[in-house]
Structures are given as C-alpha cells and as structure tokens.
C-alpha cells in the first residue's frame, strides 16, 4: 500500500518481545503503512497480529478484555507513559489519531519486579489479587441491595467512596511510579471500603493487612511524585494515599493486636 490515501497513517512500532518470564526480552521493529486514525491502539495491534499470523510469526501477546475502559486488563506503556499520554484514558480507549503520521512508537509492558512479564506485553498482576485477599473485602453478609436511604450515608462520603471505587486495578499507578509503588491502588481500596458503613467495621484490620501484603510483594515506597495520579485512567486522587497513611498510623496504635 502506498501512502496515497490521506486517511491512513504510517507507524513504526518498536514492541517489547519476551518469550517468558525468565527469557531476556528485546524490542522488535514493525512497520505499519495502513493504520486508520480511527482505530484504537489495541485494534492497531490486532492488525499487526493478523499480519504476523499470516506470515507464520508469533503474534504479540497483550492483555485486553472489555475494550471500553472498565475492566482494567489493558496495560501498555506507550512512549514511556502508562496507557499512553491521554489523561483519564485506558489504552483500549486511546486512538491512533493521537499519534502523528510517520511516528515511531515504543510499546513496553508495565515494569516492576512485583509485576513479572509473562510474555511480551503481558504481566502477572496477581500481586494485586493477593493484596485484595489480605483485606480488600467486607466479611459480613451485607445482603441484597438495601432500600435507598435505609443506611444513611452523607453525600460527600458517598462521593469520596465512589471516586475511590472507580479504581479498575489496572496497575498503571505502579507502572508510572518512579519507585514502582502500589500506594494509589491500595489506598483507593482502603478508602473506598473504609468510608462506607458496611466496610467501616473492619477498617483498622483492613488497612494494616493490606499494607503488610503490599510490602510483602516487593513494591517500592511512595515518595510523593504523584505520577500515579497523573497516569491513572480513572483519575484516582493521591489524597487517598494520605488517608491511608493516616489510617495505617491510627490503626497501628489503636488495634489491640500486639504482634
């Protein structure tokens, strides 16, 4: 295809290819001449993979599921930015028109020891699952949805809890953090659950258990760069981190657990 059609773009892709967790990875270069500006980034990768399959090559492995910005599966670092450069956008919602015709695009996986590469651009985010299993839940049966206003919750509290609950657990905060810290994720869960009446009962135990689990996974420590907030596709606020720090301190003193 020649570049005659003004509605298509030429893109040079440098994609991280890695056979498995232990293999050494490297960038492979691919040239795409017929990229529609209306494609999403993932659709562009689909086109690349079709081509690779046709020529008998291994397709590029990457995570995705809903492709509508709600599941948290997609996870690419594009030209050094988690989910690409757009504010409040998952990479499945990022469109090729955001790139320039002829641009070279580096695609890398989330990089953090706690998120080992499984293959190519797919990383193992089960560290987040283990943190959730340590305390990111409510133990009591909360029954079916209660009648509206049966449990009074102040508007501001509900808003804050909802804002934190918007976290889709994609891990972009870790990927974007210069220290690979998971504080934004954990703090979103802590403040989402701890603010609501059903979750409040286990507030102290939850924050301590989740922080301990986070530390055990080998994430880095927060140094308040706030890159996580800027990269978060759901724009979770770093105020949650301050909230978690405060609650962790209070819980450590208040809890009757001497260990």
């Amino acid at each position, binding site marked *: 295809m020649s570049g005659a059609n003004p509605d298509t773009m030429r893109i040079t892709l440098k994609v*991280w290819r890695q056979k498995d967790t232990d293999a050494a*990875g490297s*960038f492979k270069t691919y040239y795409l001449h017929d990229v529609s500006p209306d494609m999403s980034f993932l659709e562009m990768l689909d086109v690349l993979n079709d081509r690779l399959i046709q020529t008998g090559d291994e397709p590029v492995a990457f995570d995705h599921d809903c492709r509508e910005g709600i599941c948290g599966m997609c996870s690419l*670092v594009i*030209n*050094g*930015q988690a989910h690409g*450069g757009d504010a409040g956008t998952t990479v499945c919602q990022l469109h090729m028109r955001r790139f320039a015709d002829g641009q070279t695009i*580096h695609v*890398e996986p989330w*990089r*953090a*020891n*706690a998120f080992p*590469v499984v293959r190519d651009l797919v990383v193992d985010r089960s560290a987040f699952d283990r943190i959730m299993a340590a305390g990111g839940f409510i133990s009591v049966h909360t029954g079916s949805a209660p009648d509206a206003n049966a449990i009074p919750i102040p508007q501001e509290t509900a808003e804050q809890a909802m804002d934190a609950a918007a976290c889709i657990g994609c891990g972009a905060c870790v990927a*974007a953090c*210069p*220290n*690979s*810290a998971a*504080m934004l994720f954990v703090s979103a869960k802590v403040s989402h659950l701890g603010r609501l009446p059903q979750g409040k009962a286990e507030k102290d135990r939850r924050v301590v258990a989740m*922080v*301990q689990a*986070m*530390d055990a996974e*080998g*994430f*880095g*420590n*927060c*140094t*308040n*760069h*706030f*890159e996580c*907030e*800027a*990269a978060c596709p759901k724009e979770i606020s*770093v*105020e949650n*981190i*301050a*909230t*978690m*720090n*405060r*609650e*962790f*301190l209070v819980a*450590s*003193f208040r*809890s009757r*657990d*001497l*260990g």
Partner: protein
Amino acid sequence: MLRWLGNALSSSIGKKILMALTGLFLVVFLAEHILGNLTLYKDADGTAFNDYKHTLESFGPLLKVAEIGLFAVFAAHIVLALKLALENREARKQKYAVRAHRGKATAASLSMLITGSLVLVYLFKHVVIDFRFNSAYHEAPAATVKETLSKPSNATFYVLAMAILGLHLAHGFRSAFQSIGASHPKLDPLLEIAGTAVAVLFAVGFATFPIYFLFFWTGGAS
C-alpha cells in the same frame, strides 16, 4: 513489648512517616538556626552573636542532649533515605527503555537523594571544618563566622549549598505533610504555597549571610 510499634514503623508507610517527621524536625531546627544567625546583623562587633552562643552554652548538659538528639535525627533521616532509595531502585530491576513523566514529578522530587547527599557534604564542611569542631570558632565565634564567609570560595560554596537545600525543601516540606496523612482539598493548595515559601525563605535567608559578609563586610571588628 513494642513489637507492634517496630512492625508499624518498619513498614513502607512507617518509614515514610519517620522520614517526614525527622524532615520536619530538621526544618524546625533550621528555623531556630536562622533566628540565631540573625544576631550577626544586630551589631558590627559581633557581641549579639557571641552572647547568643554563650546563652546556648549556658544550658550545659541540656545543650549536649539537644546536640546528640539533633545528630540522631539527622542520622535517622539519612539512614532511612538510603534504605528507601535502595528499595525503590530494587523494585524495578528491568528499567523502561523510554521514560516520559507526566509532569507531576518535579526536578526537586526526582533529585531528593542527590540534593540530600549534597547537603550532607555541605554539613561536613560547615560543622566539622568551619565551625562546631573548629577551635578558632569557639574562641572568637562571630569573628570566625565573618572571616570564613567573607572568603569568595567559601561564600560561593555556602550560597550553592543553600540553593540545594532550597531544592530539597521545595519537595520535602510539602511531601512530608502528605506522608503523615495531612491532605484535604482546602489544605493542599496552602501546602503547595507554604512548601515553596519555606524553600525560598530558608535558601535566601541563609544565603544572605555569605553574600553580606563577602560584599558588604569591611572586616576588622569582631
């Protein structure tokens, strides 16, 4: 008996809180220090500064305790800084080939270990060579300060060091409040301003001493 406290403080958040508290304590020390130094401007012959130093010394063993306490806080701040920095390096063994920040991290926030380490280099000269462990300083305090700071090489070194301290505080002061959990939509914009103000006030405030004694002090009186 205090295992719970050890566990809490050795966690990632615990270390951050200790980092913040030691940092804020050092800021309080800086405030006391700059107020004390202002006595240098009070008179030409240095009596006010010498009196200030004698007042401090009149506390005797209490001053020793304060000095040891200050040293301990510095040591804790530095040891924790190194530990956190090492852990953070370690947390991403495979680096990104392309790295682009989103504009939230700043030169100040990204260089805390470098600015901190340079402040440490400065402190060695300031404390060990120039003043605290220099016997000439204890014989003639104000005169030694003026002599030392009026040398162009020293004055340049001191001014540069204060610029670096300012950079450390430009991130550190605001960051410390976030670490100890003080964040609120009403508070955060104020902290932003206060952080810059504290950084500029200390950097410029301390830098006036070498600048004054280099350019405007005519020597002589002690």
